[in-house]
Every structure is written in structure tokens, then in C-alpha cells.
């Protein structure tokens, strides 16, 4: 009994409410006789879609910079990689025919150097603003997203699916369907159980990323990074260069952000530029916090649980609310806002003041 109480206490009020809400939604979905197979299918896809982006929070929290509100930097690197890979396909038309899978990996490869360089610079900055990382990260993210809005107007991408037929710059939303990148991971080894479609490739890819992260955390550098985040004074005394480990964490987070947005885009079928990446970090931050992480501690379990819970709620909430009453059409989006920001606020109060 006592352990059950301890467990609930560890979970915290905010998470209990969210868990309760999820259970309620699921029960409602069953009682209202909604199409469960459809719900499960889209839940699986949504969870896989966000998996890597949520995983990007892990190295940031573990290395001590806290939840990466600036993962939009990584997302932008991924988008640049994606656009470049589409442009390559266009320019090389008639020379080499690049398939969807090849383009997807080219996109990842191209985004990698950008993400690493960005991560180094961003980590350098975060080392200079210790104690205010979250706020700075948020505004660095906002600033860079808004300067990239200018950049999208000027970057020399000419492929017809990207450029506006008239006017300046690339489109707001770029379809990946023509190049066969859409659902390239989702459909890999995909199978059906009844009416439920399992996006095997997508889930395997997320699992692979988690496994690699798990291996990394057991390496020499991984343990050093963990110590730098958990207790910087201990790490310093044990001969670990704390600032360097924080940069390592930032680089990993940025790289995962880049890979994450490409995984997201292939499942969604589009790349969203301009405002697109602005508020994505908040979803990822909220997901890992809902999974049980704090701004100082996170594990792979937190990532997995949080992604399932938060994105599960998002998928189930809308049809349930609609089934109640057609007037409540915005309930899904509203509940996302309240849960997402409520859980971040809760985590901030738990971290305590200085």
C-alpha cells in the first residue's frame, strides 16, 4: 500500500490528472463505440512521428542544459537537409533517379553537418547563460525560426515542388509525395492486425534511435555527460570537462531534432517551413515531462511513456469531443494547449526557485 502511495506521490498531481484524463478518453472512446482500429492506427503513426523529436530532449536534460526549448534549431537543420535532398533529386533528374529511401537518407546526411555545427555554437552560448538556459533557448529558437523565415525567401531552391510559381522564396508547405518520400519509413514492413495498420519501419527506426541512445549513455562519454548534468561539481572534481559535456549533449539534441523532423515529415507527407517549427519544441518538452521526466532528470522510459501518453491523448481527444457534441470542435486543440503548457508549468514549479 505504502509503495503504491509512494508511486503516486512520485508521479505528481499534474501527471495523475493527465493519466486520469487519458484513461477517461479511452473509456469514452470505447463507450461511444468509436472506431478503435482507426484510433489505434493513427495513434501508432503519431507516436512514431514524434518519437525522435521527443527523444531529442533526453541528451539535453541529461547533460544539464534542461529541456531543449531550442530544438527548433535542429528542426531547421533537418528542413535544410530535406530541401537540399529534394533539390538534388530535381537537379539530377535524367542523370540519376533517386528513390524515396535514398532521398530520405541524403536528407539526414546533409542535415548532419549543419546540426553538428549549430549544436556546437548553441552549446557554447548555453554554457555562457547557465541558470537561464530555458528562457534563452526559447528565444534563440524563436529568433532563429524568424530569421530563417527571411532565409526561406532568399535561399536558391528552384525545384518546382518547392518554389512558388511566381514571387519570391520557397512554399510554406512542401509535399514529399512526388519524390516518393512520403511514408517511406511508415510503409516499410508495415502489416495489419485486423484493421490496425502497424507502421513497422517507423517504430523500428524510433526504437533504433532509442537503442543507440541507450548504448551511448553506457559509454565513457555518456557517463561523463550524465555526471556533468547530474552534479557538475562532482563531475568537475572527477576530471570531467563539464562545459564540453554540455556541448556534447546539445549537439546530440540538435542532431536528433534534425533527424526527428525528417521522420515527422515523411510520415506527414509535407515539410512545413516558416512558422512551422516555431512551437514544435513545446510539444516535445511537454511529452517528455508527461512521461515522468523533470527539468533535471530524464530516462528513455520517460521518453517512451510520455510520447505514448501525450500523443495518444491528442489522437483520441478530438473524435471523443466531437462525439459528445459537434459544438466542441475545438476541444482537441484546447486540451492540447492546456495539458502541454500546464505540465511544463508544473515541472517548473517542481524544479523550485534559486
Amino acid at each position: 500500500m505504502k509503495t503504491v502511495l509512494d508511486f503516486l506521490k512520485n508521479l505528481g498531481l499534474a501527471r495523475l490528472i493527465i493519466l486520469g484524463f487519458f484513461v477517461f478518453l479511452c473509456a469514452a472512446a470505447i463507450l461511444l463505440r468509436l472506431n478503435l482500429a482507426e484510433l489505434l492506427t493513427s495513434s501508432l503513426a503519431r507516436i512514431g512521428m514524434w518519437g525522435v523529436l521527443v527523444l531529442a530532449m533526453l541528451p539535453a536534460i541529461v547533460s544539464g542544459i534542461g529541456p531543449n526549448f531550442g530544438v527548433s534549431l535542429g528542426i531547421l537543420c533537418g528542413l535544410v537537409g530535406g530541401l537540399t535532398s529534394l533539390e538534388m533529386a530535381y537537379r539530377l533528374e535524367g542523370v540519376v533517379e533517386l528513390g524515396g529511401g535514398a532521398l530520405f537518407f541524403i536528407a539526414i546526411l546533409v542535415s548532419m553537418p549543419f546540426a553538428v555545427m549549430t549544436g556546437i555554437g548553441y552549446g557554447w552560448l548555453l554554457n555562457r547563460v547557465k541558470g537561464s538556459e530555458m528562457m534563452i533557448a526559447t528565444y534563440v529558437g524563436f529568433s532563429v525560426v524568424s530569421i530563417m523565415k527571411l532565409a526561406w525567401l532568399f535561399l536558391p531552391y528552384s525545384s518546382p515542388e518547392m518554389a512558388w510559381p511566381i514571387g519570391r522564396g520557397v512554399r510554406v508547405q512542401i509535399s514529399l509525395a512526388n519524390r516518393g518520400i512520403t511514408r517511406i519509413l511508415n510503409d516499410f514492413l508495415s502489416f495489419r492486425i485486423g484493421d490496425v495498420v502497424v507502421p513497422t519501419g517507423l517504430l523500428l527506426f524510433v526504437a533504433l534511435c532509442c537503442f543507440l541512445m541507450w548504448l551511448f549513455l553506457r559509454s565513457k562519454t555518456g557517463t561523463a555527460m550524465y555526471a556533468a548534468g547530474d552534479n557538475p561539481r562532482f563531475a568537475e572534481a572527477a576530471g570531467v570537462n563539464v562545459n564540453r559535456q554540455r556541448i556534447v549533449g546539445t549537439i546530440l539534441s540538435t542532431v536528433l531534432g534534425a533527424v526527428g523532423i525528417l521522420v515527422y515529415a515523411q510520415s506527414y507527407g509535407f515539410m512545413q517551413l516558416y512558422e512551422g517549427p516555431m512551437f514544435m519544441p513545446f510539444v516535445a518538452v511537454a511529452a517528455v515531462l508527461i512521461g515522468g521526466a523533470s527539468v533535471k532528470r530524464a530516462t528513455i522510459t520517460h521518453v517512451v511513456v510520455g510520447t505514448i501518453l501525450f500523443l495518444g491523448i491528442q489522437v483520441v481527444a478530438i473524435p471523443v469531443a466531437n462525439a459528445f457534441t459537434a459544438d466542441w470542435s475545438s476541444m482537441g486543440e484546447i486540451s492540447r494547449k492546456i495539458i502541454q503548457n500546464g505540465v511544463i508549468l508544473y515541472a517548473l514549479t517542481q524544479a523550485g526557485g534559486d
Partner: protein
Amino acid sequence: MAPESVLKMTNIGKSYYGTTVLKGIDLEIKPGEIHGIVGENGAGKSTLMNILFGMSVIHSTGGFEGSIEVAGESVQIQSPEEAMALGIGMVHQEFMLLPNFTLTENIKLNREVLKPNPVSRIFGENLKSLDFDVMNKDARKALDRLHIDIEEYASVAGLPVGHMQFTEIARELDKTNLKVLVFDEPTAVLTESEADHLLQAMKEIAADGIAILFITHRLDEIITVCDNITVLRDGALVGHRTKAETDVYELAELMVGSRMAELAQSTRDLSEKKPVLELRNLNVRMPGERVRGVNLDVREGEILGIGGLAGQGKIGIANGIMGLFPSEGDVRLAGEQLPLNSPKESMARGLAYVSEDRRGVGLLLDSSIELNIVFSAAQNQNQFVRRWGPFSQLDSDTIRQHALKYIKDLDIRCTGPTQMVRRLSGGNQQKVCIARALTMNPHVLLVSEPTRGIDVGAKRIVLDTLRKLNEELGMTIVMTSSELGELRSICDRIAIVTDGKVAGILKPDDSDVNFGLLMSGQKAEKGA
């Protein structure tokens, strides 16, 4: 009529969670008296002051025993505000000043002189205007009493430290009902001439009829200004003395006292041994524990103790050698120059360190015992690491075996090597720290405050372990500790650090007077 006592504390006692830290303290002060309080760290001075000021740390832990009378009336002081209202003031050791406020604003902080205005008539007291003319005049008066000639409208930022101290005192003097003023180590941060100025000011304040409680470790200052002196040791009252009947030597002896060592004292003669660690003019900028030019030799195979009062710099020495705080100077290990300011270098050359801040620096509290034990060795010596090119993994099997060995050797009481360190008792946590240091196979082991905050039985085991390491493995140990008795029980020599320098090196069986004098910054009676 002889003046009544203005403050009388009778039979004061206090215990925290069953541990008695203060018992049977009596203290009586008359108006205009300067009363010195002397004692080592942990003697109970600060607990006594916390009781006097009604600090919440006292009341939240079950209050205290005994009674307090102010000006003849029995009082129950529940909060610092109440103490203030009764006319008890305190000049803090750390400055309670706001740098961007003027002297006036600081002196009048939260006691501003107010005048009403139309808005305040509607919205109340809080919106009354500040009356700067009156405030400035009051501040000027208080500063004049201390002979400070800085403008009261200057801002505090950038003032020399001494003037900040006087601003603090002026704030207390400005309180009209001030009866008792407590000075807590006020001269620690001052230059010599500033300190003289302060002592002079204290005499003048006392001459106005205010009683002063003067807490310091500088015995010569006590003898210079105090009328009466109270000596505390280990939470008990050792004695009251008047200025006439005592001297520095007696105070020093009373302060240290004879506590016979629990373990047999070392009688080895290691004076023939080569020095293995040589410190020349070592300076360490460790906040609160600054080291200012230490020269010290550690001989091969000995246990060297470093003692002294808190804040004097003894803790800084080991921290500086290990590169944890910015240091300068010349450190040689086995004849070779040691690059400073790099923990990695210090460890690579065969030093290992058990920190005084066990929970802050010594441990990853939320990690397993085994990770804590092997962490430094893995990071610095690639022990327990399997590598494949740029990739590596910690070798969990050997880590497990190694941890189990140390759990057995050091008798770490735990549920297993994967238990979280946070759940262990203080003594067992300390053993984990020692195990990590030993895993590095160090040439010289630096240990700071190894028994702080752990129970008596565990203390014994820790000290026995250190001695065994020294005797059986010939490991050189430098042990820093606030507990003199502990140092005297296992060390071959004890260096006493005062004002950031080595005041002298004593044998464990030297007299109490010598220890007391060195710790108070006096010269020892005779060479050790």
C-alpha cells in the same frame, strides 16, 4: 545604583534530533559592557546566537531549554523581528547591504522615515512617501558616531570592505532602542587599521551604555576590548573570566581543552623520510576558505593533519592541490612540478581526493554505488572501459566484481552494488567516497573532513580504515579536519592553518595551549 544586567541567559540548552549541541550556558551582560565569546567551531556560539535571535531553525526543531531576560524581564523570542523590537541587534559576518542603494537607504532599510501624501490617505501606509531629508540626517548622525566621513548619499557599490562593515554597524546604531549589539567575527574581513578603528568604535558605542557581545577567534582583540569573557567548548560552558584575571594563554587552553584521544597516538618518527608533496607559496581562491601563501612538506608514508578554525583556509589547501578552485603557486609531487587548476592532471599524477562536501562534490547521489566507485577511475584511467575505436562501453562485469570487493573490504552497509547512494547513511556514503579514491590507486590520498556528519561508530571505522591504508599499503595521507581530537589521534604531524597560512606544525602530543594559540593567530609558547 549598580546597573542591572541588560541581557541574561540562564541555563540554555538545545538539542537537534536527540543530539545535544548546547547545555547549561549562562551569560549575563550589563549596559556598557563588552563581553567576548570564545570557542572553536562547533563550540555552540552560533547556536547560542540563533537562540538569542529567535531564528526559525531553533523553533522548527523543537525550541530550546532555559530562559532569557532582557532588561530584567523574562522574554520569549520567537523571531528575529521580535529580537529587533527588544533592542537586540546583530552585525552580520556577511554583508547585508544592497549595492545600488545609498548609505542612507541601506541604513534605513525597511525602517524608512515616511510622510503622508494624498494617495496614502486613501491607499494606506504602504504608499506613504519616503522622507529623505530626515533619513539622511539620521544616517549622518549614525555615521558620525563611527567617525565615517563618506557622504550618506553615496551608493554602497564600490565602497571599501571596511566601510561596508561600518555601514552595517551604523544601521544598528540608528535603531533608537538598541540595547545589545552582537558582533559576529567583524574583523575577519578587515585590514589591520580598519580593525583598530572598529575596536575603537566598539569602545565608544559601549561608553554610550550599549552592551556588546563580541564573537571572534582573535584572542588578542578579545583581551584588548572585552571586560568579561565567556569560553565555550563542545556546547558547554567552560568558564567566565574577567579581563583582569586572564590572558591569551589561558583562553587558548580553555578553548581547546584536553580531550584525550580515543586511539593511541602515533609515536613514529618519520623525520628522515623524503618529502613527497611540497607546497610553496600556494594561493587558493576558494570563497570563505582562502589560502594565502602556504608552504608545507608532506613526507612519504606519513599521515599529515591540517587543522584550524573554519574560514581560515585549511579546507582550501586540498581543494587547491586538486584543481577545484583557482590556485597559484608551486606544487611538487615526488619532485615533479604539478600543473595547477586541472583536476585531471592532479589525478593523472597519482593524487586522489575525498571531498569535505560529500553530498555536493563527493557523490552522484542518484546513481548506484558501483557507478560512484568506478567513475573517476573510468574517466581518468580508462579502467573498466572496453573500447572499439571511437566507441566505448563500461564493462559491467568487472565493475560489479570491483564494487563487491570494496563493499566487503570497507564494510559498506547496503542492499547491493546497485543501490542508490542517496539511500545510504552518512558513514556508508563516506566509505563509497573513499572507495572511489582508492580505486584510482593513488600515491597520496587527500581526505577532508572524513568524519563530518557521521555517527560515532562509523567515525571509528573511517579513521581505522585510513590508518590501515597508511600502515599496510604505505599510502601517504593528508587529512584535513575541524576536529582536533581526531587529528591528534591518527596523525604524525598537524599543521595549523590561520589566516590562509600555516601558523605552525605541532606534534599530536603538544600542549593544548599551543594548539589554542596557533588557532587564534598567536605565536606558540615554544617551538614544536
